[in-house]
């Protein structure tokens, strides 16, 4: 049975597993650099427009941001436990934790979506819909718009990754349901788990950078 799971180019299961996990790590390295470009832009403009960035960040709801961080951290825990369940061959726990991970992931997106709609409602979405007027002569609305463009882009790209992650989890769920995973073969769970944690790590940085500029 193990043989059918090894693709023709590989010699054995171990080689295949190593390849999958290394492949995911390299992919995550590319992801780091992808977000890296955005972080560089963020660094430059935050340094150039400190006042505008602080002011803009106060428009966000830091409490929701913090709550969302907790949600995501918990989902990461669940993912880790799902991998643990796969390792120990407990299919029911695997499915349970996958489900919990997905629920928490979706909850994150719901909260984020609520925040977004609120911010859009306040006229903070850059472009034609941007209606923010600078309250102080000291900085311009353009600079605040710059912040929000980075904000929407970074959280948007992050959210996009979450959605992909949810699809992947869904796939795992189906596979687990079909009893595809055994303590000898669960590389997909592990590899997708890596991806999920990575998305969590990105948020760990986004939260203080976007929500917590300047002290309260």
């Amino acid at each position, binding site marked *: 049975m193990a043989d059918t799971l090894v693709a023709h180019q590989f010699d054995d299961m171990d080689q295949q597993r190593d390849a999958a996990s290394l492949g995911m790590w390299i992919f995550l390295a*590319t992801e780091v650099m992808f*977000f890296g*470009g955005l972080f560089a832009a963020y660094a430059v*403009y935050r340094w150039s427009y400190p006042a505008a960035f602080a002011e803009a960040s106060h428009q966000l709801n830091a409490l929701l941001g913090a709550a969302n961080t907790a949600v995501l951290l918990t989902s990461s825990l669940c993912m880790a436990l799902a991998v643990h369940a796969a390792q120990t061959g407990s299919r029911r726990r695997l499915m349970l934790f996958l489900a919990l991970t997905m629920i928490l992931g979706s909850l994150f997106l719901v909260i984020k979506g609520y925040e977004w709609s609120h911010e859009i409602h306040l006229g903070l979405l*850059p*472009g034609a819909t941007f209606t923010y007027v600078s309250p102080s002569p000291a900085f311009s609305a353009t600079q605040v718009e710059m912040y929000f463009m980075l904000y929407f882009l970074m959280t948007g790209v992050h959210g996009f990754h979450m959605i992909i992650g949810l699809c992947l989890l869904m796939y795992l769920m189906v596979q687990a349901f079909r009893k595809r995973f055994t303590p000898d073969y669960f590389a997909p769970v592990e590899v997708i788990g890596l991806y999920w944690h990575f998305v969590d790590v990105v948020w760990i940085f986004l939260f203080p950078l976007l929500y917590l500029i300047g002290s309260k």
Partner: protein
Amino acid sequence: MQSVSPTAELPRTGRVLNYLNNGYTARSWLLSTDHKRVAILYLISVTLFFFAGGAAAVLFRLELMTPPGDLVQPETYNKLFTLHGIIMVFFFLIPSIPAVLGNFLVPLMIGARDLAFPRLNLLSWYVFIAGGTLTMYAALAGGVDTGWTFYTPYSSMFAKTHVTAAALGVFISGFSSILTGLNFIVTIHTMRAPGLHWFRLPLFIWSIYATSLIMVLGTPVIAVTILLVGIERIWRIGIFDPSLGGDPILFQHLFWFYSHPAVYIMILPGMGVISELITCFSRKRIFGYSFVAFASIAIAVLGFLVWGHHMFVSGQSMYAGMVFSFLSFFVAVPSAVKVFNWTATLYRGSILLQTPMLYAMGFIGLFTLGGLTGLFLATLAVDVHVHDTYFVVAHFHYIMVGGMVMAYLGGIHFWWPKMTGRMYPEWWGRLSALIIFVGFNLTFFPQFILGYVGMPRRYYAYPDEFQVLNVMSSAGASILGAGYLIPLGYLLWSLKYGKLVGENPWGASGLEWQTSSPPPTENFSTTPQVTQPAYTYPHTEELLLG
């Protein structure tokens, strides 16, 4: 052609199943996950792109025959060199050796049945084609006129051409590059044949590995950068345009963070090919194997620390300029190490001047000159004068055309018998190598002088005193163009009429020569065992140097 192979034997006349005759339908090609078939798909596509880019060059070299702009409109001229640059860089040179020879050879050279992720490999070709199609659409629907560098705010706020589509094309093709690089790294790490440890690998594998590192770590940055340009362009939200609060220099940083390392994507694979050619045609081990191997890694890593040398006059901080200049000279050292080791490999070799070897020798000379003029540019005060002049144009064509394209052609000739089972006509091969060498130098050497005298690049009209050198350059370009058409002709001819060859017509070492030509779909009937270092040829004596 004298018989060069001690082991050459004609294949049995009965039909042996190989990757080429294993199915003839379009489907068997377009949905094949066989790395060798994917390589052929890439071969065909990059060849098309090369001639498209070359055709643009032919047109603008014609325009540059006379000082005033009289052949095309200025806007057309700008679209031509932009198209030329974009196609040649993103759709020809970056995929050339990695995606064609790399795809074909990496599994063969390491004794594997395929790449680690064959389906991903096929996907990367489709992604590449999607990006290429979009870019060609942008070109045909009206063109792009930003230069291949897409500098902001011109590209994001001012250009009225199809920037978004072209940029999106480049963005998409970037993912193809990432997937290819990822696949190679994983394959090289996990799928080497038993006994094939790192220091027994062919140097081509080392260079492909180094290239893949750059692809994986650099390409994502250009992807976001292009994304940001697109956003600024479509929604007019400030990111790089100063009138919206942005900073155009940031764009240049992000762009060159990728694009300088990318120039090493465009040379390292060539260096790998040269190491193979030099050793095979002097029937000798490479001189200083580990130095050549580590030089590739050093170039890849150091290459990430020097991007600011494209920005000496851009308005970046003077101190940043000095740091970048200083670090640029560090990259020169591993490059020099390679050149010297290749030369030393020839010493007391058993040298045969077949076509691939001619290309290899051409490569070394032209790369040296191109690289050394790179040092002119890395020298701060000198770059202030020659930046954005034809001196720069000459520099990079020496490396990219004189270096990489030569290496690519050398590699194609060298592995042609392996890929097709047939030999190209040697006499024609040497002739065209010679024509290309002469045409190349006539095209681009005058440009060094033009640049030093002060002719800016991307000029469609120029003062009269620059004409003589420009005419020489255009004349050279037509010789060069003809030189490229000859191999196209005879290689196609050889598909049907070329002499059939055995496993190893060159008497080369390396696992790829131990399987039949063309190789069977599964590459090897039994997984090879490796017991010797790379380039082990039968030899006369041990010779010790200092």
